[in-house]
């Protein structure tokens, strides 16, 4: 029996998946692309007209849109870097032989498992300007003498949301890094010790290189989520106050479904997709350069 016969041809097995993907991903993506060159409205009251590149030219003049991209950028950069640093530090701490670290490890999954919307309403209750736990706690401890409206002040809202997001998502980084730390062979560390490497050297030459691939996975997962963030912000502030927390996704949603301008909304979405593709390309570039 030849190798060919063993292999056979089973390409047809991919067809169901391709059909569904074409229906819910491919086709909508093409439609969004087409809409982006028109002035279509949501309900289709007027017949959409072809407007060429106008939507795109307008997009780069649109303060609201540009600002929303900036908010997305700040959110993603702060959230991902804090989560990676905090998450890794916590993993290193929990990898130490400390009494009780096993218990903490069991609860580590809690923030990650709490649904995003529950996390959002939970922190909304905690930040409540009148009856929230945060104000009450800070007041009782004497840190503040007046209650603060965290989510409705322009300079605090985004940071309050960032804090809430970090609580939920740093634990994913910790869990992934911790799993990797536990697969680090004890013998390697011992050998380095015998060779006279101090704990910093052991960390930089043995531990770090070992956990970096896992850390990269965690980072990619978090970047993907953070760049397109919608849910947590929409539920906590709806993009306010004064649009200070309005991210790209929220802006596009409002343009399409509140202002009913799906042509413009689509072009913003396409620009955002282009930015994400750029981000992925830069990331893969740096990865392949590191490998060389």
């Amino acid at each position: 029996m030849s190798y060919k016969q063993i292999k056979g041809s089973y390409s047809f097995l991919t067809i169901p998946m391709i059909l569904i993907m074409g229906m819910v991903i491919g086709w909508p993506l093409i439609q969004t692309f087409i809409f982006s060159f028109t002035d279509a409205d949501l309900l289709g009251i007027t017949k959409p007209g072809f407007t060429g590149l106008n939507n795109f030219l307008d997009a780069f003049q649109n303060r609201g849109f540009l600002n929303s991209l900036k908010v997305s950028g700040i959110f993603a950069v702060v959230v991902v870097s804090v989560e990676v640093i905090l998450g890794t530090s916590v993993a290193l701490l929990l990898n130490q032989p400390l009494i009780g670290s096993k218990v903490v490890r069991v609860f580590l999954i809690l923030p990650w498992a709490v649904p995003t919307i529950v996390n959002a309403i939970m922190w909304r209750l905690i930040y409540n300007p009148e009856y929230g736990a945060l104000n009450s706690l800070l007041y009782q401890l004497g840190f503040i003498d007046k209650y603060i409206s965290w989510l409705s002040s322009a300079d605090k809202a985004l940071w309050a949301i960032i804090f809430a997001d970090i609580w939920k998502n740093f634990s994913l980084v910790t869990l992934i890094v911790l799993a990797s730390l536990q697969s680090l062979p004890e013998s390697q560390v011992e050998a380095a010790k015998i060779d006279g490497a101090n704990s910093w050297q052991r960390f930089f030459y043995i531990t770090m290189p070992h956990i970096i691939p896992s850390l990269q996975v965690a980072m990619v997962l978090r970047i993907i989520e953070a760049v397109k963030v919608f849910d947590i912000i929409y539920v906590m502030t709806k993009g306010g106050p004064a649009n200070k927390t309005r991210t790209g996704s929220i802006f596009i949603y409002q343009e399409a479904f509140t202002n009913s301008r799906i042509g413009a909304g689509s072009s913003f979405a396409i620009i955002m997709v282009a930015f994400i593709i750029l981000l992925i390309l830069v990331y893969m570039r740096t990865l392949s350069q590191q490998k060389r």
Partner: protein
Amino acid sequence: MKKKFKFSTLLKYFALIILFVYIISPFLWLLIMSVSSSAELTLKPLRWIPEKIDFSAFKELLVMGLNTRGELFLYALRNSLVTAMTTVLLSMLVTIPAAWVFSRYSGKKNVILSLAIFTFMLPPVAYCIPLYKLLVRFDLMDKSLALAFVYCTFVLPFCVWLIKSSIDAIPYELEEAAVIDGAGFLQRIIQIVMPLLLPALGTVALMSLIMAWDEYFYAMLFTNSKAAITLPVVIANLASGRQSNYNLIAAGGVLASAPPVIIGMLFQKALIKGLVSGGVKE
């Protein structure tokens, strides 16, 4: 030397305690709120431990009655379950065979795999407008099955990515040996591949369930009544209303968190292993 060692250990324990408090306290407070009376939650400053445990919020959400909050909540609970399970079933059914082909026949077909993984990174706002028009046009708004198909936008790429790398880990020689022994195609898949793949499939199914359970954006757009509305939407609506039944909002949050938190605590190791093994190799 000895003294220094002790001090650093002390620091580590201090950090461990802070970490534990940080992880636990927000959710513990949600739990406490859910069993407090609404009067206690509007004191200024707050009382941290309720005088007596009050389950009325849970009762209001979980007791069925015509046009009550309980009715909507229970329907949402059912819809969330149905939508999540349909999504997972649908995704697994089409991705397992596809992932097998991607794993065993590398080459041009892997363009499709890369494309699938790539779409995982795109924001839902890139699809939602045409999907909305499509659902309106074919009268599919407010239907769990339609929502489950929409959820495939993010569950499918995730499944095919993880399942493919799990199949990669199964030696192809095992399949070859079976074929040489005269096994047909179905035998080869059912008797050789599936048993070895089962633990990984369990992990992928659980993760996908949690992802679908978590989803808010599409559900908010595409459902609006007890026919298909999901828990996240109901809870978000509950919280955005101008009312001060904080215990009710908290109870809703606790109930919606229970399934994923329990699954997470029970299967923590498997979940993380699945995620890491899928990712690191790419």
